[in-house]
């Protein structure tokens, strides 16, 4: 009885046994490349929104996309990154100015040109601020927008930030000490300037 059972077990194993299975899996891993290459990515798609209008959404284009926060859903301007999912009805977006990313349904997208223009301008101003590194040189005026659009313009402080407290404690106690500190900093700056100039001259001599 036991022998018969073990025999049937061996038979079962032999039926599904394939010595070349590992190699087939290896080849399969390589051959799937051609399939992936042939499938082209969706870059644009026409879609009828819930409001009855016909939209043409493109990768790289702008739109209003929903963003859920604390249970509330609000629409913000965003850039379309990808179009995919089942039946190409899912859209990957990056919100303008805030930088967040999300995957939303295509039927939830819509357009508000004014809000999108405001967000793009705010993001460009943010980039300018980072380049010039002067925080108080930009002042935003809140432009008019529809009530459903978010207020994407953030005001910047109109004055320089206060001096950190520990620097006040380290300030010179009198005019004479302040003059000495100034002379000391000049001396150090001169030393490093000369050192830098010597290194640069040495490079020129070698070349």
């Amino acid at each position, binding site marked *: 009885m036991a022998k018969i059972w073990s025999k049937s077990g061996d038979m079962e*194993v032999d039926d599904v*046994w*394939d*010595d*070349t*299975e*590992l*190699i087939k*899996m*290896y080849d*399969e*891993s*390589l051959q*799937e*490349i051609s399939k*992936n*290459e042939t499938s082209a990515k969706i870059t644009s798609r026409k879609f009828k929104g819930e409001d009855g209008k016909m939209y043409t959404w493109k990768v790289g284009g702008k739109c209003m996309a929903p963003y859920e926060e604390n249970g509330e859903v609000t629409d913000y301007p965003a850039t379309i990154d990808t179009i995919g999912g089942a039946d190409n009805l899912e859209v990957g977006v990056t919100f303008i100015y805030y930088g967040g990313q999300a995957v939303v349904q295509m039927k939830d997208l819509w357009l508000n040109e004014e809000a999108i223009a405001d967000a793009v301008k705010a993001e460009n101003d943010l980039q300018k601020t980072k380049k010039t590194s002067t925080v108080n040189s930009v002042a935003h005026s809140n432009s008019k927008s529809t009530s459903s659009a978010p207020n994407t313009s953030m005001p910047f402080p109109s004055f320089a930030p206060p001096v950190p407290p520990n620097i006040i404690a380290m300030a*010179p106690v009198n005019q*004479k*000490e302040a*003059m*000495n*500190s100034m*002379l*000391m900093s*000049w*001396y150090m700056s001169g030393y490093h300037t000369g050192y830098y100039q010597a290194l640069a001259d*040495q490079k020129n001599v070698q070349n």
Partner: protein
Amino acid sequence: MDQEACLGPSDDFEADDVDMTSPAMSAAQYLRQMQAERRGTKNVVRIAQKSPDSTSPEAKKQKQWLESVGYQEVKKIETPSPLIPSEEWRQEKCRKFEETRAKMALKIEKFSPMRIDRLNSPEEEEWHEILLEKCLPEFQDIAGNFLNHTGTPPALRMVFSIPKRHLSQLIEYLVDWSIEEGLNRPIREWIYSLLAVIDLPLVQDVVSALRRLVKECRSLRSELSIDRKSEANEFSLFITIITIFFGQKDLADI
């Protein structure tokens, strides 16, 4: 000097009076120390220029020490961007490899390994002969199914019959052979097969060997032209499996 113009009349002092041994506690004291030090310094200082070709004994010692501890100068390997696979490709290959390992684990549980005497503690040369040069008698009947192999092919029964204690050493041997003989098709298939069955976590020597394999794959892939994408993807498969699945993420494609 500016300092002398400011300090001269109201703060005249002799150089001998300045205490040079203790650090200055105020700016004025520091400036006095600086002036005293400058009076004792020559106006011109000469620095000997070393030619870049000559290596000093210290540099030679440092180079020898670095080589002794296994330091390798990292070449900048830049693969043409069309040959680097996409993120979706990499995740898909990693998921497929994980499925392969799961299938192999199920089969290993049911399989009773064959007793092959030559697989017990052979030397590296003997392993090389078994895997790459001459097929074992037990598997010559199925050798026809493996056209790429002249040695023993990575059949399921063969892979499952290798003792577990030899799997780690065998992967190291295969990586060494790939560096010496080139990463040819039989070696690639054997490495893939052993990676599909080896137990986790890996021992450190295997991790080191796999990292060497990844660097070799990246180097070989960077030499390919843009139109040879299928060959680049073979190297990318190993890079993806080792960097994502086996956790060597610092070597992954960006």
